[in-house]
């Protein structure tokens, strides 16, 4: 019998601090799929904010830290397309002139997957059924979509695992205005973009908004909550793991 694959879970800094429930959902799903999950405590942030700010030196230090923390696992999995994209696409760019680290970055990139596409494409797992009798709409986060090709995987998993009805909004693949530091550097423009997105989401019959990247979801949920919109926001992993029974992101515990 094959031994269980080992998965290093890179929980991402936002999930770690803002929404641990997503981390627990990821562990549950990966274990359900037969993986042995380890959460290395040397992980901090993948370095994307530094990379996108043009601070290459800091990006490389954080990338080396991450590469070292995740040595030896069969797979490295992240509940975020944007952070996974950093490991897969940008770490190799960071070490273009450094053959030793380029090789290590390439090795990590080959083992790294975003959670939902890992479950769907790599493990091709059938998850335990989940009752979630809601109508939901889906926001495709840009990095996952365009850097890693994540589009059908979450929809496939939701359709095969849960009882939810998906009511797609128009322009589901348009940016929500988060953009990492963009949303605090250009808050006015970001606000317009998130309002446009929420208005499209509200035009559907959905009362639940799902996605695969906490940055975007915090932006959407934070704005929806400020506007008092009746929209509960969850990471797809929370729904798939049957852990979306509590409050949505930025929501009150007793809903």
């Amino acid at each position, binding site marked *: 019998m094959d031994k269980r694959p080992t998965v290093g879970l890179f929980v991402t800094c936002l999930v770690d*601090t803002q929404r641990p429930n997503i*981390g627990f959902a990821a562990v549950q799903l990966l274990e359900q799929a037969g993986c042995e999950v380890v959460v290395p405590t040397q992980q901090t942030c993948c370095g994307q904010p530094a990379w996108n700010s043009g601070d290459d030196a800091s990006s490389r230090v954080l990338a080396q830290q991450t590469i070292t923390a995740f040595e030896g696992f069969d797979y490295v999995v992240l509940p975020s397309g944007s952070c996974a994209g950093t490991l897969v696409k940008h770490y190799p760019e960071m070490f273009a002139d450094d053959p030793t680290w380029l090789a290590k970055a390439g090795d990590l990139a080959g083992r790294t997957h975003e959670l939902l596409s890992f479950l769907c494409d790599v493990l091709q797992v059938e998850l335990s059924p989940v009752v979630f009798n809601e109508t939901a709409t889906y926001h495709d986060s840009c*990095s996952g979509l*365009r850097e890693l090709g994540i589009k059908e995987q979450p929809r496939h998993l939701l359709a095969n695992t849960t009882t939810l009805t998906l009511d797609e909004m128009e322009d589901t693949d348009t940016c929500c205005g988060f953009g990492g530091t963009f949303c605090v550097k250009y808050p006015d423009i970001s606000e317009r973009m998130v309002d446009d997105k929420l208005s499209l989401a509200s035009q559907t019959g959905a009362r639940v908004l799902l996605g695969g990247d906490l940055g975007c979801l915090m932006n959407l949920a934070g704005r929806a909550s400020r506007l008092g919109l009746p929209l509960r926001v969850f990471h797809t992993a929370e729904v798939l793991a049957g852990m979306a029974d509590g409050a949505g992101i930025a929501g009150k*515990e007793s809903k």
Partner: protein
Amino acid sequence: MSVQVTSHTFKQNAAEALKDAPLQDALGNLKVGFIKKRLNAIELVPEWQRIRDEAREMKNHVLENLDHYLLRYEHSVQANGGHVHWAETSANAGEIIVDICKKANAKTVAKGKSMVGEEAEVNRRLEEVGIAPIETDLGEYIIQLAEEPPSHIIAPAVHKTKEQVSELFHKHHQQYGLTEKITNRVDLVTEARTVLREKFRNADVGITGANFLVAETGQHVLVTNEGNGDLSSNLPRVHIVIVGIEKVVPTLEDASLLLRLLARSATGQHFSNYTSLMGGPKRDGDKDGPEEFHVVLVDNKRTELFDSELREMLRCFRCGACINHCPVYGAVGGHAYGWVYPGPMGSVITPAMVGLEKTRDLPHACTLNGRCAEVCPMSIPLPSLLRKHRRTTFEKQLQSMRSRTALALWSQVARRPKLYRNLSDLAVRTLSWLGRRQGHVRRLPLVSAWTKSRNLPTSGNNRTFISEYTAQKNRSESS
């Protein structure tokens, strides 16, 4: 650079644009007008990706051999009886054009739309010597009346509403006998056409841009939807083409390869209404055409771009697809960017042409969502080029002290996992306590840019995921 650059006040420009109701109305049309039409058009071309790949390779080859093809083009133009002028800077280009117009004793000049002409500020330079430039592209004509710069490279007046155009014509066309306000779109076009037709007839010089220069034949390809480029080229005595040096292609076949991509990407048309091949003055036996033909080849930092890590930007053939699909452009419009080129392509080109010091916001005012690169027919990796500008702003310390300090502090903490864990736990405990009733915080001093318009979600846990998970693991292992 004498062009008035307002990119340094991007944030303020953007804030004003967001409050400009007619502008916001006009921007709402982008989605239907460009995005959906493009999608419909390329769906009918199954080999789209193959054409894109071929075009990228062809253009890369041209750029590698740019000197060869430009000299070949020059030779062909001269063989056709035309004159070629080389302009190192945009100012040189402007001076060359003014000289030609003066020698032709020009009173009025009919102008086709040209973004390189905007770089060189041709209109201002002509006006300064008493020559009247008349924009003949409808959009350009509208903004010339409004005394505004273009806000989009293929739809210069996209920021104007029908009502604003009606108002402008009412104000400026009374001299041609217009008495009542025109409210209907078709009638507005007819009105402009009637007034412009007379101006074409009287112009001494025509100035146009060119979409492609064909090295083997010395011809250029000019694409328009209004036919104004053809009239500007053929009716006046003298025709001047102003064009960037990167627009050269080896053969007519190469030009047609790019034509398959251009209109579909730009306006969602399979082909523009007018695609004309021109070059050289009127020959014996020709029924029309100019007596003199000049081409002004403009460098204006393009060779610097070639030598930089932004070289791929020179593949750009100005279709505007990246602009049409940019959500930031869609929110603030083109004027906020503060120079000739807006949107993603502008945020790469403008810093390179007018200096990053004056344009430091442009590469940062982007969410790196990647949609621009996805739709770019020439496969230009716009987000990574913007990131290269960001690296320069970081190295030259052009970002605000506040954001640099925040980044430095954060990165020092993130390099120390133990410190990072402790501080994260502290932050989570504090935030959870603050948000204990609502599940979010409405106001928080250090992140006021976030809480200005959004609530900050709090986790409801007292610890980070990693602390909580590790504690659970230890408990289950010791029991």
